């Protein structure tokens, strides 16, 4: 007869989770707290003083520039979300309901997923031969006589930024939606078909309501990626487009920590609020365990 384990199971669990809790506390939560504190401190070109100074906050909350930057960020978020959601849905729907065998479905998913493993900087430079002034798109347009001179807004522009976002972020949407669609029992669709529902009615009344968790999680990926991005904006716009996150990075590079911190707090509150709302539509743990 073995002796009962002397340590209660709850305590064992707490010990097992401790290293992870430690990392998140020291590397995420504590730093976030310090960002908040520093946003209220005074600074000069070299360092931060432990003195109360509300100028950074005044600046963030009252300046027209901040509003313009957020307007630009939200414009990008809205456009990228709309495009990736629509495109993602069409492709996910095709993979889940039109493709008939699992093998073909997995092969097509892999085909769509492979380019995702290209590193960011390489991905950015890869658009030059296509969208640049002497790029293939301009060569084709001029060759076909559609334009007489190269279009300059294809690369290093807002358009280029949007293209790069859609290129990167459609995949998470597709994966989340396909995953949700796979959980719809075929019999439900079959029943609707037998009752005479059109394809559009099935999409609107059955599929869309049932894949809400997938849409929510995909949206979290897309929204947080666009809001937190400074790299793609900088590379694809050639530094010509400024967003809220870009402004923070610029201040970070100039060691202007308090104003950067105040702006970061605003951004973090917005991101976490958005994610909080989106998580109401999806229980991540339940989604994963089924």
């Amino acid at each position, binding site marked *: 007869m073995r002796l009962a384990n002397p340590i209660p199971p709850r305590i064992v669990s707490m010990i097992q989770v401790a290293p992870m809790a430690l990392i998140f506390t020291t590397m995420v939560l504590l730093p976030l707290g310090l960002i908040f504190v520093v946003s209220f401190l005074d600074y000069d070109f070299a360092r931060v003083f432990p003195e109360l100074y509300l100028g950074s906050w005044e600046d963030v909350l009252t300046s027209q520039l901040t509003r313009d930057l957020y307007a630009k960020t939200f414009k990008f978020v809205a456009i990228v979300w709309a495009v990736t959601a629509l495109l993602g849905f069409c492709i996910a729907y095709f993979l889940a309901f039109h493709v008939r065998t699992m093998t073909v479905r997995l092969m097509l998913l892999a085909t*769509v997923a492979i380019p995702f493993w290209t590193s960011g900087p390489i991905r950015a430079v890869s658009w030059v031969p296509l969208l640049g002034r002497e790029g293939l798109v301009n060569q084709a347009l001029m060759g076909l006589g559609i334009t007489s001179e190269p279009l300059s807004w294809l690369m290093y522009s807002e358009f280029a930024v949007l293209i790069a976002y859609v290129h990167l972020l459609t995949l998470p949407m597709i994966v989340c939606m396909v995953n949700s669609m796979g959980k719809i029992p075929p019999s439900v669709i079959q029943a609707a078909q037998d009752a005479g529902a059109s394809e559009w009615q099935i999409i609107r009344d059955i599929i869309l309501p049932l894949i809400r968790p997938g849409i929510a999680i995909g949206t979290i990926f897309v929204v947080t990626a666009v809001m937190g991005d400074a790299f793609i904006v900088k590379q694809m716009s050639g530094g010509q487009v400024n967003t809220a996150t870009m402004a923070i990075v610029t201040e970070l590079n100039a060691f202007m920590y308090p104003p950067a911190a105040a702006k970061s707090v605003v951004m973090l509150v917005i991101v976490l609020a958005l994610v909080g709302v989106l998580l109401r539509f999806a229980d991540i743990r339940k989604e994963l365990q089924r």
Partner: protein
Amino acid sequence: MTARRPRSFYFLATLLGLFIVFLYAPMACVYILSFQGPNGGMSFPMTGWSTHWYEVLFGGTGGQGMGDIAASFRRSIRLALIVAVISAIIAVSAGMAYRRKFPGSNFVFYSAITSMVLPGIFVGFGIALTFNLLGWRVNWFTSGIGAQLTWTLPFGLLIMFIVLGRFNPSYEEAATDLGANARQRFTDVIVPIILPGIIGIMMASLTSSYEETARTQLNVGTGNTMPMEVTGLLTASATPVLFAIGTVTTLFSFTLVGLTIFALSRLAKRRTMRTAA
């Protein structure tokens, strides 16, 4: 049952085809243009085929701001290997914890979600700021690894949820009935069953550590990591040598991913053979 395809099938199939072209076209240009002739530029047409730009890359004789690619590659790989191992250990341990209810489980779970959804730049900024205020120097071994763990651990935990959510507890009960102690249950029953998940966590951590910049950048201390070095080259150089770098690094990433998939499918095959036998 070869029912006729509805019209929407052809429309969506075309859309998917166009999307795949859109996905692959940029990198296809990179691969082709990396073999550009010595006098060629960063756009088509090709001025002959050559391996000139690879020679510039590996010879290091180009003098075009090639920096120190080999050193940053070694730095990145060293960091990625350590992060992969630590992530797997911590994530497996935490995953085991979540098989029971315990106080603080929601706190850790929502910390993980927060860490995952927060823009990397702010996490990186926060860590650099913390080190700065405490008077510590940022260093790849402390702040660098820590910053990367904030990115790899949430995914590790989610993978463990997937793996342990599908774990059939009767195997473990059978082992207990046969007299296995907690340690034997873990090493002889649980680990072999969740091994594909552990490999998955290590490879996901390895690749994301290797590519991460937003969190790492401010915290890695002296010396660039690979993506930082490549980003630096983008601004310093405007010749097809960039495409040679792109081809080589992509080949490397794909090899990593390919090896993972190969290892996982070998495991799966061995398992089905064993159950069939």
